C-alpha cells in the first residue's frame, strides 16, 4: 500500500507533537515544594517542608545577615556550618506574607555554605534551618528594615 503525500505529512506532525509532549514534563524533576512556599506561618512552612516543626537552636548554624537593611528588596544572607551530613539549608522570614524564602539541597560533596539575596517586606526575624543527620538546627536574627521589599 502506497502512502499518499498528505498521509505522510500527517504522520510527521503527529509524531513530532507526541515527542514534544513527552519532552516537556522534564521541566521539574524534583517537585517544587508548593505547599511549604505558600504557607503563611513559619510553623506551617516547617511542617510542610520538613514534616516537623521541632527546631533545635544551634550556634553551629552560622547565619550572616545585616542588623539593619536600608533596602528590604535585596538583603544579603549567608548560611554555613561545619556540621556533617547536611542535607539542606532553608531560609525563612517570619513576617513576610510567605515565610519560606528559599531552600537549598546539599548533595554529598557540596559544601554547606551558601549566599543569596532576599526580600523583607518589613522588619522581621530571619531564620536559617539546616537539616543534618535528620535533625533540624536553626539560628535566627532580627533584621530592621527601613524600606520594605514587597510594596506596590
Amino acid at each position: 500500500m502506497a502512502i499518499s503525500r498528505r498521509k505522510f505529512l500527517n504522520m510527521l506532525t503527529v509524531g513530532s507533537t507526541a515527542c514534544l509532549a513527552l519532552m516537556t514534563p522534564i521541566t521539574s524533576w524534583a517537585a517544587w515544594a508548593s505547599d511549604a512556599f505558600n504557607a503563611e506561618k513559619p510553623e506551617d512552612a516547617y511542617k510542610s517542608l520538613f514534616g516537623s516543626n521541632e527546631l533545635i537552636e544551634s550556634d553551629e548554624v552560622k547565619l550572616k545577615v545585616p542588623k539593619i537593611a536600608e533596602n528590604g528588596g535585596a538583603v544579603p544572607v549567608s548560611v554555613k556550618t561545619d556540621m556533617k551530613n547536611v542535607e539542606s539549608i532553608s531560609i525563612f522570614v517570619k513576617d513576610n506574607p510567605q515565610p519560606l524564602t528559599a531552600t537549598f539541597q546539599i548533595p554529598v560533596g557540596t559544601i554547606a555554605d551558601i549566599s543569596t539575596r532576599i526580600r523583607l517586606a518589613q522588619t522581621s526575624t530571619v531564620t536559617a534551618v539546616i537539616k543534618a543527620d535528620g535533625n533540624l538546627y536553626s539560628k535566627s536574627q532580627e533584621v530592621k528594615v527601613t524600606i520594605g521589599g514587597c510594596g506596590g
Partner: protein
Amino acid sequence: MKVKAKFKNDITKVRVLAKHPMETGRRINKETGEKIPAKYIQELTCEYDGKVVFVAQFGTAVSQNPYLAFSFEGGKKGYTLELRWNDNTGDVEKTEAKIK
C-alpha cells in the same frame, strides 16, 4: 544567567546571577491599578559531570535578578558546569560555564 566558577584547593566555587524580574504577584501597576502577575524562578539546578551538585528552590521573596553562591568538592579546570532554571510560568533558561 551569568556564571563564574573557580577551582581552588580542590573546591569549585560557583557564583550565579540570574536575570529575572522575580515578580511576587502582589505588586500593583500604578497606571492601570491591576496586579502584576507573579513570575519568579522556582528552581535552579547545577550539574557537573552528569551529577547534580546543587538544587535551589525559590519562593517569591528572593530578590530580583537572584544571586547565588555555593561550592562543591572536586571539579576540574576547563570542565563544564551545566545550569538551568525554570520559573512558575514554564520559562526555562539553560547555560554552561567553564570552570576556571
